[in-house]
């Protein structure tokens, strides 16, 4: 159980800045996901926390204690790697035993031939065996203990890697895209298992992924990274509904949020696709971008219209792709009721509620909105 604090962490590789001053506090016992596009520096940040990579400046504190210069093994963190990094020559049992043996046995006791003969060794081995049995029980890998990693499936290896991390009861778990080598179905399954494990252990989990679905479903908080900076930290709901930046809005959510061109007037009114919204803001006049999530688009009525160019029926829901004439724009709307699909090529009206709208200024920052009063002269966008 640990609180991890990062203050202005900077890191550069061969002159290119990979991390540009990360300030961030991970609370005790929380499950936090670091998400972001490939190459944004997530793994680097995780490795700095683990101590595998030194930062150029800034400080990492675990439970208030600075750990810079402390070896990875002494930080008492566990890490699960993308490739699992199991020792291929050791059995599952021995793989899980490594961290225990490294900690509990002295260097002399670990010697190949002499070690096992030493007096205290037997008792210690006994304790190790008991601990591993308990872990194997929890993770359901007891039948696999004799096998080598090469004889395990991807999901089983994954569990062994988690077991090796769990066995010594670390202060926090660090995961670097642990599910990305699994097939889609197993990934969903392991997602649930890991979330369940976190609930049981109540230990801090730091989880790196570039899969936003993983982050949304598992974590208590999400930290979105882009280009070496943390751009937003919040609960999954906050990140989804209240993104502070257009890049966050676009990264989170599948299918992607619809972005429509808009304009802010001098009086604070906002137009989208030429129609005014019943909204206002305090921003300066100029171009803006308006985001609407696919599930917030109401098909059938409204001030806008488009042609159905593509339909994706997933059974439980459907996505309607609309091309908007004149604007050269496409957007996606979610249809909950798949029994009444529009015909391909048909012309559909649509609109959206004013609270469904997220407005971003020309550099992508979120513009705070206030809902307009009824005495607006301009025509309302939608009922």
């Amino acid at each position, binding site marked *: 159980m640990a609180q991890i604090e990062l203050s202005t962490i900077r890191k550069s590789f061969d002159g290119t800045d990979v991390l540009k001053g990360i300030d961030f506090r991970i609370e005790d016992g929380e499950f936090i996901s670091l998400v972001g596009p490939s190459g944004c520096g997530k793994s680097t940040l995780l*490795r700095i926390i*683990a*101590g*595998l990579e030194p930062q150029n400046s800034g400080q990492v504190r675990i439970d208030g204690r600075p750990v810079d210069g402390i*070896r*990875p*093994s*002494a930080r008492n*963190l*566990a*890490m699960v*790697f*993308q*490739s699992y*990094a*199991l*020792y*291929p*020559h*050791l059995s599952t049992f021995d793989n899980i035993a*490594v*961290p225990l043996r*490294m*900690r509990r046995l002295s*260097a002399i006791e*670990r010697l190949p031939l002499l070690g096992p003969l030493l007096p205290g060794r037997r008792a210690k081995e006994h304790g190790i065996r008991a601990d591993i049995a308990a872990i194997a029980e929890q993770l359901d890998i007891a039948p696999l203990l004799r096998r*080598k*990693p*090469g004889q395990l499936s991807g999901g089983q290896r994954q569990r062994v890697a988690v077991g*090796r991390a769990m066995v010594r009861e670390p202060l926090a778990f660090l995961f670097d895209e642990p599910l990305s080598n699994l097939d889609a179905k197993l990934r969903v399954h392991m997602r649930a298992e890991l979330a369940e494990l976190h609930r049981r252990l109540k230990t801090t989990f730091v989880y790196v992924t570039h899969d936003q679905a993983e982050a949304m479903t598992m974590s208590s908080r999400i930290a979105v990274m882009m280009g070496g900076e943390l751009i937003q930290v919040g609960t999954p709901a906050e990140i989804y509904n209240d993104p502070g930046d257009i890049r966050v809005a676009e990264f989170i959510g599948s299918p992607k949020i619809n972005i429509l061109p808009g304009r802010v007037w001098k009086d604070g009114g906002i137009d989208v696709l030429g129609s005014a919204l019943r909204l206002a803001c305090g921003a300066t006049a100029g171009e803006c971008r308006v985001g609407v999530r696919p599930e917030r688009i109401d098909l059938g009525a409204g001030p806008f219209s488009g042609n159905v160019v593509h339909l994706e029926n997933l059974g439980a829901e459907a996505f309607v792709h609309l091309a908007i004439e004149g604007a050269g724009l496409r957007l996606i709307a979610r249809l909950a009721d798949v029994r009444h699909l529009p015909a391909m090529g048909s012309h559909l009206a649509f609109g959206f509620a004013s609270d469904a709208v997220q407005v971003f200024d020309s550099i992508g920052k979120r513009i705070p909105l206030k809902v307009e009063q009824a005495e607006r002269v301009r025509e309302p966008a939608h009922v």
Partner: protein
Amino acid sequence: MSDGAMTIDAAAVPARAARRTLPAHGSRRTYSAYALVAPAAALMLVMLLGPLAGVIALSFTDYQLGAPHFSWIGLANYQDLFADKVFWIALRNTLTYVVVVVPGAVIAGLAIALLIQSGTSLRSLYRTIYFLPVMATLIAMAVVWEFMLHPQFGLVNGLLRGAGLPAFAWLQDRSTALYALCAIGIWQAVGFNMVLFLAGLVSIPKQLYEAAEIDGASSGWARFRLVTWPMLGPVTTFVVVVSGIRSFQVFDTVHVLTKGGPSKSTEVLIHTMYTEGFEFFRSGYAAAITVVFLVFVLALTLIKSRLADRGVHYT
């Protein structure tokens, strides 16, 4: 175009005709296959397999080059051989050479590879330097070594004298000559082993070291024991066997520098075989020595090919 023609043909021609054309096609290709392998097969028979059978057959005869007749004498050559003191000396010297050179060249090769890989600077420069002896014609370098080991004007004794240590007549002294040859053998083989070890080291996933680091293997030695050594296992056995085979074949340095002397102290199997077969032209007897040599080398080779199939299985 031809594609289209093919499909039309295939569609139009009834199955019977297709059956008729296919074997014809196949057999034309079979003929060319035989034509393609014929030179290789013939040469292999004449230059490899035939001579191999020949050397075994020859070892049961008393054939001497230039003699008009020969007769089958059964195991007499082997009996002579096993009764010959020189053969036993040669075998013992060969084994001594192998037992000294293999560990020396393997351990030094591994140590150098580890040292080179433990940093990033000047890697390729060091690799080039250590590999240089592998490239240089051994005979030429043996001649250089001979002068380096010259009792009076050589570099080695010069340095020893400079350090106030006793000097030796390395190649002329029966107690040191074989070990001097071993040193040359190690010097020449180290770079080769180093390159094989470097390739092995590069292929160890970096994440294993990081996992080891996190699991508490904080010293370099602990990481070597936990990751490097086991992961290099297959490479190491391979290098040991290859070095063994090459050491068994030692001949060049012996022939140029000592001719097996002084007083047979550097006599080795292939050198005995050479002297008997190509200086005294006792072909049958030399063939028997070859067979003994072959038994040792094939045993090692078989171990190697067994091991080569087995690697670390990891995905």
